[in-house]
């Protein structure tokens, strides 16, 4: 059995670890609130651009490369969104596993996968395994802002616009040096973590480009309503410039914002995941301290008992020898 001194040392070390994990937990908790606030602050723009696009969609021909699946596409870009720091439980692992699945799927359907990574953890993961990464960006996993994510967003859109036959412009973060040919791609997928609740975060794959249209079934109300129009019909929109040109300008903007909101959501998920991991680490530390204290107390009592036994035994022996004198 371990001595009391060893046990006390361990208790002390577990306690100091617990302090760290507890602090991390508190920080992560406040960061979730912040991240959610950021998501909420970005909502007005998201709603408005959605509304604008819907209006445009009904007025334009909807014939835009970003809305069409490309025939005979050869290259697919995969953006893996990971965190800059660890201590977030399975957060990064889950995303990377999902990314590997997606890459396998794309390779099976004949696509050449071009990998992009954000977040230091993902970069290190691929570097350690000596796997190719076409571009990497770090430093904004916890608080992504519009300017910091500029290069990622622009490059993915440029690359798609250029297609696998064309070339995209060089940007900071790409692994090729300036002046080399940067081949584009025909699809863009993003693997990130969805924030479902404080306790649940799911790794998901989202196809960013081409935009997958959401087809909603229109409900036609039969009967009188068809004839007597409801009276509250939205008037026709005036477009400046014309609808098709406008769509051309708006779609990249829409996709860019979509990608930005993915970063925002991933940031919230990262903090939530870290909070959970740190909470269970703190709980485990408390449990461990409890167990160790129990063993330490037992050892202490055993020591006392032994001392008493020794004293009593010693006194008895003295008394015995006294009598015999």
């Amino acid at each position, binding site marked *: 059995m371990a001595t009391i001194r060893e046990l006390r040392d361990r208790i002390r070390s577990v306690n100091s670890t617990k302090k760290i994990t507890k602090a991390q937990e508190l920080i992560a908790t406040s960061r979730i609130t912040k991240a959610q606030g950021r998501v909420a602050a970005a909502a*007005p723009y998201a709603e408005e651009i959605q509304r604008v696009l819907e209006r445009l969609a009904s007025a334009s021909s909807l014939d835009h490369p970003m809305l069409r699946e490309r025939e005979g596409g050869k290259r697919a870009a995969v953006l893996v969104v990971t965190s800059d720091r660890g201590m977030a439980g399975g957060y990064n692992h889950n995303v990377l596993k999902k990314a590997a699945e997606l890459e396998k799927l794309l390779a099976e359907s004949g696509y050449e996968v071009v990998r992009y990574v954000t977040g230091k953890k993902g970069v290190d993961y691929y570097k350690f395994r000596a796997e190719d990464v076409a571009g990497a960006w770090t430093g904004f996993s916890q608080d992504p802002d*519009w300017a910091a994510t500029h290069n990622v967003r622009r490059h993915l859109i440029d690359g798609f616009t250029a297609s696998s036959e064309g070339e995209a412009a060089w940007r900071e973060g790409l692994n090729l040096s300036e002046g080399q040919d940067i081949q584009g791609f025909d699809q863009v997928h993003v693997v990130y973590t969805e924030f479902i609740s404080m306790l649940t975060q799911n790794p998901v794959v989202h196809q960013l480009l081409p935009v997958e249209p959401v087809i909603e079934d229109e409900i036609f109300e039969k009967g009188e309503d068809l004839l007597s129009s409801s009276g509250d019909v939205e008037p026709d929109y005036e*477009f400046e410039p014309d609808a098709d*040109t*406008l769509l051309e300008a708006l779609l990249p903007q829409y996709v860019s*914002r979509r990608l930005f909101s993915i970063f925002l959501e991933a940031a919230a998920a990262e903090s939530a995941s870290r909070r959970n991991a740190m909470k269970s680490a703190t709980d485990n530390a408390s449990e461990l301290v409890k167990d160790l204290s129990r063993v330490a107390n037992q050892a202490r009592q055993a020591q006392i008992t032994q001392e008493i036994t020794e004293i009593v035994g010693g006194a008895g022996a003295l008394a015995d020898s006294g009598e015999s004198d």
Partner: protein
Amino acid sequence: MAEITVELVSVERMLWAGQASIVTAQTTEGEIGVLPDHEPLLGQLVENGVVTIQPIDGEKLIAGVSGGFLSVSKEKVTILADFAVWANEVDTASAEADLNSDDELAKARAEAGLRAVRRSSEGL
């Protein structure tokens, strides 16, 4: 006086929302003023253009806007922007320095800001 609800929204947050009597913006087709009861309209704004809002109470607001869209509907006027800055918040000296920077983002911001400053000094 008639009024319209105006929202100036950037990607990251809502910059301004309130009641105004007139909004002007520069679309790719030319400068446009929007008064209450304007017909519905969608427009693309020029790169780094200027948007002015005359609130019903208070001073006229002038902003430099980059990558923007203007949407006028029956209920409200919304200006969507990548980035927007108020004329009175622009640091002219540093903006002028940014104008020659290599960073295209900083350059665009500086340009938008300076245009807004120029407009507000013209007093239009």
